[in-house]
């Protein structure tokens, strides 16, 4: 058993097998070797492993699809054992003094082209089999277990770090937990884990090596511990904790359908943050009153090119319809900084967090912005869509946005395209917006405080830099004062205020937010019911008087 320590971003226990996540497919590199016989031995061992894997697949397939269909795995085994194939690999290793991966890749190509050249359709297609066995060998040689990629069993994803564009591609149903070596508590891996309600450790003090791929492991999100090959005692202790967790969740479920109201009658809206349309199922399961932050950038990050108006319209329309009249607040494109899509060609910036991002891109390239606005307005005919603009620093920006919105509405009118009433609000995530919130409140329908960026800009701390985590105080009095100031300024104009940053889910601040008069908290779906529990147990008046803490 090996135990590692990481920083936990979400409590919870996960027990399962490790799947090491590597960036992209491995490219086969040609490297010189000195000991050809050792390299050949490596190849022989890899071949044996590959044959064993295929035998496993064969046995499984026989049970599931019958012997005739399973035969292909037997053929693959024979191909791996074919003398001509083997001789070619060994020959290349010996004569060229190169690594086994390279020798296999070349051999695979040669044999595949032999089949590809045949004047028989069936045989030509067999070149795919040759490629398949060669890739399998290379995967084994590179220490990557090909089987696990296709496994149906949910796994613990272990990675160096995960970029937002990578996390969106992961099949969420197959993930039990995340463990990363790098990344900070505010990274996107952390945000994803919170949305999915699964344990995650970051900054874990381990070395990534391929030997742990597929190993049994336990993630203890309460204590930040990562156990690889846990012993019986640890395993049973963790299983007990896991069972308790499940029991607790069941209890929270009894809070479904209840109003978010304090003992002394103060109400607050509990909405959900989502990053993908698939998350709406979680929103409903957890009884959210609406969607407080729909991160539309996933649509851009998952695309190879600018998503079309219709593609976007369909997504927003689905969200509106699925939420059936409940408010769906969609944040416009928030790309740039740590969220990059290649086709934007944003170019290198010295200081991307303070660079061309979010609304700044939209105002610089209004055609991209207009496409999204058109899609959003059209979708508003199908439900209660609200639009939220990120990274605002001035009243002037809001006025420019409104001009563009008017143009869009005019176009839609001319084209006889329907749209509904759309509330428009802004994110308060820059100190400038906080200071100007009295004037901004006159221009918009609502505010939503993005505490992650607000904290980063106010404290001048890079949220992606793990070495600064010790300096990063999310409860810094400056932030709490700012929130209070924004709430007061909004209320003076009769506008409502929400918090959609991570702070909103911080249960140690829930009473404080209620006392400040915050109207809405938008949190990961899994945090809704725990927050409701606290709200139901709070007497705000007593808290204000210091009688309750």
């Amino acid at each position, binding site marked *: 058993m090996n135990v590692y320590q990481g920083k936990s971003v979400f409590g919870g226990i996960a027990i399962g097998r490790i799947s090491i996540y590597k960036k992209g497919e491995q490219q086969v590199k040609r490297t010189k070797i000195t000991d050809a016989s050792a390299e050949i031995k490596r190849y022989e061992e890899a071949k044996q492993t590959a044959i064993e894997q295929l035998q496993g697949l064969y046995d499984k397939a026989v049970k599931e699809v019958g012997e*005739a269909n399973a*035969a*292909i795995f*037997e*053929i693959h085994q*024979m*191909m791996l054992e*074919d*003398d*001509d*194939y083997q001789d070619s690999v060994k020959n290349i290793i010996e004569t060229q003094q190169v690594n086994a991966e390279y020798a296999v890749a070349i051999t695979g190509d040669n*044999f595949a082209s*032999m*089949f590809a050249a*045949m*004047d*028989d359709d*069936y*045989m030509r297609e*067999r070149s795919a*089999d040759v490629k398949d066995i060669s890739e399998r060998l290379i995967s084994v040689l590179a220490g990557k277990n090909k089987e696990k990629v296709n496994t149906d069993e949910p796994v613990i994803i272990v990675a160096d770090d995960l970029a937002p564009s990578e996390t969106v591609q992961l099949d969420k149903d197959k993930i039990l937990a995340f463990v990363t070596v790098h990344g900070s508590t505010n990274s996107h891996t952390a945000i994803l884990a919170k949305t999915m309600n699964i344990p995650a450790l970051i900054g874990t003090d381990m070395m990534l090596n391929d030997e742990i791929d597929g190993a049994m492991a336990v993630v203890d999100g309460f204590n930040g511990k990562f156990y690889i090959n846990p012993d019986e005692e640890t395993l049973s202790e963790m299983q007990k904790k896991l069972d308790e967790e499940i029991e607790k969740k069941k209890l929270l479920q009894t809070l479904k359908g209840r109003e978010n109201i304090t003992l002394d009658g103060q109400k607050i809206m509990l909405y959900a943050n989502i990053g993908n349309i698939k998350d709406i199922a979680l929103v409903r399961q957890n009884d959210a009153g609406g969607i407080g932050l729909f991160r539309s950038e996933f649509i851009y990050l998952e695309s190879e090119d600018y998503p079309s108006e219709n593609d976007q319209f369909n997504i927003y329309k689905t969200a509106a319809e699925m939420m059936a009249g409940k408010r769906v607040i969609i944040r416009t494109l928030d790309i740039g900084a740590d969220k990059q899509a290649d086709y934007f060609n944003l170019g290198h910036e010295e200081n991307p967090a303070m660079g061309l991002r979010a609304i700044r891109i939209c105002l610089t390239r209004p055609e991209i912005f207009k496409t999204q606005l058109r899609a959003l307005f059209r979708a508003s005919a199908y439900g209660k869509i609200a639009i939220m603009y990120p990274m605002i620093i001035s009243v002037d920006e809001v006025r420019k946005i409104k001009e563009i919105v008017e143009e869009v509405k005019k176009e839609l009118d001319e084209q006889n395209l329907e749209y509904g009433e759309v509330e428009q609000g802004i994110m308060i995530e820059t100190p400038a917006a906080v200071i100007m919130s009295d004037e901004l409140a006159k221009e918009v329908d609502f505010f939503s405080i993005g505490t992650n960026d607000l904290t980063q800009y106010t404290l001048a701390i890079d949220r992606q830099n793990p070495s600064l985590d010790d300096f990063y105080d999310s409860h810094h009095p400056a932030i709490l004062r700012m929130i209070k100031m924004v709430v007061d300024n909004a209320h003076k104009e009769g506008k409502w205020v929400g918090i959609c940053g991570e702070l909103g889910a911080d249960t140690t601040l829930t009473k404080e937010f209620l006392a400040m008069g915050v109207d809405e908290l938008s949190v990961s779906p899994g945090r809704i019911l725990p927050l409701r529990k606290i709200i139901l147990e709070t007497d705000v008046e007593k808290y204000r008087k210091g009688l309750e803490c």
Partner: protein
Amino acid sequence: MKTFDYTITDAQGIHARPAGELIKVVKGFNCSIQISKDGKSADCKKIFGVMGLAAKQGNVVTFTFDGEDEDAACEAVSEFMKNNL
């Protein structure tokens, strides 16, 4: 040395699966077994060689056995071909 000719009757010819089956049969013998078609010859114990002949329905393939257990091998292969191809 023993030899026999066989005309493929199976509609799909010696494709991957029967090639695999054939190899399982011949692997059990020590003698050398060659399979040839149109002057092209291959080691019958190697899947790439057998598949490489791309023998189809109507083609004539020739098997050649050379070694101690050639009689038994010849009989087993002939049996296999009749039943499967």
